[in-house]
């Protein structure tokens, strides 16, 4: 068995619902020259990509590329088309995301791409830290690709994105919510440290009824790879008591960490109705007339 086949089967052996959404660092290394693949780095830290990246990788920056500058919202169809054309991606290109912080921002970019239905998308398991630890090449050369003629669909927020009124209805219906922030954010303890800056919300706590499953629990801390299907099922189905048929809303502070959990539940565990509430605590913790729990 060749090494690439071994990697594919290793990921397949982990018991995920959709193992094809993950690729290994080896797989990426062997596809650096593949014109049907576009490797995309997406980071929390804006200095990382320019300090060195996978050869041939383009950068998609959450703030500059995916957000509307004036409205708290994502880019629209025309903006997405312009982005895809600029990075030379066609409807047939498979995009492979990777990034810092255990692929937290990579999964965020992946999630935004799904709002526009670009289904040919994968995540490099382990992200940037695994690539670096394996001593693989990084370059400061910024690649340039011929512009494409990408035609995007209108953004569809219905299936995988939740808004505040829907969250209120959801909690009143006692449907499951998952808070993926740290335990101290969940309990509201972090907002109550005198003299120190707060978390951007007037009140600390969580949305009533939300289970606490910090996002990084889905990751093996040593190499940044995702835990196995069995481990993830134990975490979400046994501990947090949610199951694949449930209608689930996930949230964090601004919706970025929860896109990671959205990715895990949707793609690795096969949940079919998970929505990310990107307003998250910075909206809910400041909203007039909604309940919180501590």
């Amino acid at each position: 068995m060749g090494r690439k086949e071994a990697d594919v089967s290793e990921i397949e052996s982990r018991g995920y619902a959709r193992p094809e959404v993950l690729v290994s660092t080896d797989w990426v290394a062997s596809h650096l020259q593949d014109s049907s693949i576009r490797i995309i780095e997406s980071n929390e830290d804006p200095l990382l990509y320019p300090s060195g990246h996978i050869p041939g990788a383009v950068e998609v920056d959450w703030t500059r590329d995916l957000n509307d500058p004036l409205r708290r919202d994502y880019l629209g169809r025309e903006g997405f088309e312009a982005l895809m054309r600029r990075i030379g991606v066609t409807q047939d290109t498979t995009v492979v995301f990777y990034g810092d912080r255990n692929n937290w921002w990579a999964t965020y970019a992946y999630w935004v791409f799904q709002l526009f239905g670009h289904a040919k998308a994968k995540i490099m398991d382990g992200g940037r830290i695994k690539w670096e630890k394996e001593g693989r090449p990084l370059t400061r050369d910024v690649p340039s690709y011929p512009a494409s003629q990408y035609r995007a669909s209108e953004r569809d927020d219905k299936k995988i994105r939740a808004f505040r009124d829907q969250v209120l209805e959801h909690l009143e219906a006692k449907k499951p919510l998952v808070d993926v922030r740290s335990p101290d954010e969940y309990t509201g303890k972090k907002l109550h440290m005198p003299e120190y800056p707060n978390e951007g919300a007037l009140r600390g706590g969580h949305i009533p009824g939300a289970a606490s499953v910090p996002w990084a629990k889905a990751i093996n801390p040593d190499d940044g790879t995702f835990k196995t299907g069995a481990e993830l099922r134990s975490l979400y189905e046994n501990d947090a008591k949610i199951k694949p048929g449930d209608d689930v809303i996930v949230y964090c502070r601004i919706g970025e960490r929860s896109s990671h959990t959205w990715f895990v539940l949707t793609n690795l565990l096969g949940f079919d109705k998970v929505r990310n509430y990107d307003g998250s605590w910075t909206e809910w913790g400041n909203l007039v007339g909604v309940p919180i729990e501590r």
Partner: protein
Amino acid sequence: MAAPEKLTDTLETLEMVPDRNERIQLLIDLAGRFEEVPQRIARRPFGEEHRVPACESEAFVFTEERPDGTLDFHFAVENPQGISAKAMAVILGDSLSGAPLDQVAQVPQDVVYRVFGRELSMGKSMGLMGMVGMVSAMAKKRAGRKGV
């Protein structure tokens, strides 16, 4: 209240580099100068009271008093890829150590935008502002004890 002189100089130097890519290279170079808090001041595990709230790069701030009563600021950044946090630590350490405490206590958190520009994610800007806020809070606390 005047801003600390060295901080003003640093910000003016950065603002003389309007090209985003050039400024990023400058900040990457600054991050390369980062030196972790000396072990004589702090060792792992660092106390939670030193942890910067909202900083996902797990930054910690420490102080050391100078004979004149001002403070040296030292940092630890646990995320090995936290380059922005390291660059910010170098800027804050270089430009606020030894500055009058009442001036440090008044440094506005939005200096972060003067360093990195406006194109920061909400979470990233909150983390970096948390570093500034933590330094200011420590200066304020020390100044309060000294009756400044």
